[in-house]
């Protein structure tokens, strides 16, 4: 297990380097000076611009620039936001918890929906329950999050007037009231994102359970009279969930897509909406840093999933 962990951690580093290389290539291929905005912006003194050029070493050979860029990205030296006038890392650290809270809750909700529905579907394939579940899953991942979000706002905020449709990070209340307000404003973004992720996960869970349920040891358990519920929970689900863990990791890059969209619709002050506002404001350092943070998060979650996978299925870590 120890060598497995070490190997996985070590392979995450080249992946991160590779992703950063792609990012850097995109940036280097882009026409024009990334700091052009500063040249035309009268509010920014030329010294700042020269300092930035020097800080990013824009006149050095490309390999050196990449090495330096990657180094400073890893150390969290992401530069200075043109628009907000603060260091980019401060801006991101401020916004990241909200994003992680929404994403984490959404993923939990997705699991809470997908596990029962997927298991029930797979227990009796092609039955009525399965048909309904599968159809709903199809509808779920064909409904784009931005459309569901708008429909939710239309129904719950405008028509029923139950939930606020603007997310506020600075709620003044304290105690129970604070918790309640946070819950109320979090419900819509989390549900929209969670149902979308859950719909896909349902398909994964269903096919994974279907694979396991027809194996010999399940028949053995049944024929020796183990109660159906015990067979299902102890023998089927436990083994079926192992591949689902990997699929969760595959979903991670995608959930960030959903995060950007839902944060934008519900005006959640996370890094997804920061990315959009920065793009609209041509705030290059922030855009680069956020894309990099997303990449690091993806690699990190994939690593965690892999380690979990090795822990759940010891055969993997012996290979």
């Amino acid at each position, binding site marked *: 297990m120890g060598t497995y962990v070490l190997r996985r951690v070590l392979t995450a580093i080249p992946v991160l380097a590779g992703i950063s290389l792609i990012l850097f290539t995109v*940036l280097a291929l882009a026409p024009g000076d990334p700091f052009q905005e500063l040249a035309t912006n009268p509010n920014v003194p030329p010294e700042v611009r020269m300092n930035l050029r020097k800080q990013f070493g824009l006149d050095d050979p490309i390999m050196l620039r990449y090495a330096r860029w990657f180094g400073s990205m890893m150390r969290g030296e992401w530069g200075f936001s043109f628009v907000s006038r603060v260091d980019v890392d401060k801006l991101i650290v401020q916004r990241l918890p909200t994003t992680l809270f929404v994403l984490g809750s959404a993923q939990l909700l997705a699991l809470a929906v997908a596990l029962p529905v997927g298991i029930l579907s797979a227990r009796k394939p092609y039955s009525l329950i399965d048909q309904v579940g599968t159809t709903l899953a199809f509808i779920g991942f064909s409904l784009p999050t*931005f459309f569901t979000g*708008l429909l939710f706002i239309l129904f719950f905020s405008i028509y029923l007037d139950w939930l606020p449709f603007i997310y506020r990070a600075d709620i003044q209340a304290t105690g129970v009231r604070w918790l309640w307000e946070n819950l109320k404003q979090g419900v819509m973004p989390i549900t929209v994102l969670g149902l979308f992720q859950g719909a896909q996960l349902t398909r994964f869970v269903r096919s994974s359970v279907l694979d396991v349920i027809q194996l010999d040891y399940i028949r053995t358990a049944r024929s020796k009279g183990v109660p159906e519920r015990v067979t299902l929970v102890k023998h089927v689900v436990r083994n079926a969930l192992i591949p689902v863990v990997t699929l969760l990791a595959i979903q991670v890059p995608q959930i960030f897509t959903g995060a950007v969209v839902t944060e934008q619709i519900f005006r959640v002050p996370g890094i997804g909406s920061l990315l959009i506002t920065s793009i609209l404001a041509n705030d290059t350092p922030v855009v680069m840093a956020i894309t990099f943070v997303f990449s690091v998060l993806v690699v990190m979650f994939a690593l965690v999933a892999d380690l979990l996978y090795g822990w759940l299925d010891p055969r993997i870590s012996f290979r």
Partner: protein
Amino acid sequence: MAGNGATSEAVVAGIPRVTTGRADSLWREAARRFRRHRFAMVGTLVLGIMVVAVLVGPFLYRVPIDEIDFRAKLKAPTWAHPLGTDDLGQDILARILYGGRISLAVGVVAMLIGIFVGTTIGAMAGQLGGIVDNALMRVTDLFLSLPQLPIFLLVVYLFRDSMRRMLGPELGMFILIVAPIGCLRWMPVARLVRAQFLSLREKEFVEAARALGVPAPRQVVRHILPNAIGPVIVAGSLDVAAAILLESTLSFLGLGFPPDIPTWGRILFDAKDNLDFAPHWAIFPGTAIFLAVLSINFIGDGLRDALDPRKVL
């Protein structure tokens, strides 16, 4: 020597005929299986209607997409404007029909790019093997772990202005949207094609072709690729749905097509701030995206059932 050549000629001439015969019945069998998938048939019907509507519709429904009429702004559906109007009094049905062309075209073209890149890389990895295979598969894994939307947004953000200047606002934006989507979606196809190649390469009929001295490129194009096409078609159909979703997401965020090219996502972007007094403005284009994506996903599911020969129906 001459006799030898004639024999192999006859054998080679014989092979296409045999394969065509089998391929025909294989496709007919697939069509039969596909027709049994009820949802896939409904999806085909719905998507067919939508395609016909966006292709023919603008010729029959001759309301201009950009006729501004402030007296009729934000009107709910009426006979004059079957799907209502937006904040400039422009007809929403006309805009949806016109924008649908672009939304669907983005899906198809991005899928073709993704399939082309994926098949090429997968075929190279599977055929050449060894170090090439290893390197290409690492690259594939790398692309799989990219956060797609942020990278896509970054690319669009960085190249937007120069592409527009070079190719005009419409074509430039189209290429800028289609090319990155294709480049972000080829990985599953590459993996599928590689896996197919690894197993097909060792099959007897390929071995026979190799023994007859068929050059490697011809082995690939003529014998292996046609047999590897099934999973690629399935992946391709699902890619169309994903590309439509990605384009509408981008347009919904206000970073895609300009307002004079009303793709479905763009209409939603314009509509979202008027939700409380003009809900129809958002609901119709959103439903269009949903129906298109749902139909394509069902068609993909039907194709999977139809093209998987192991599955007994």
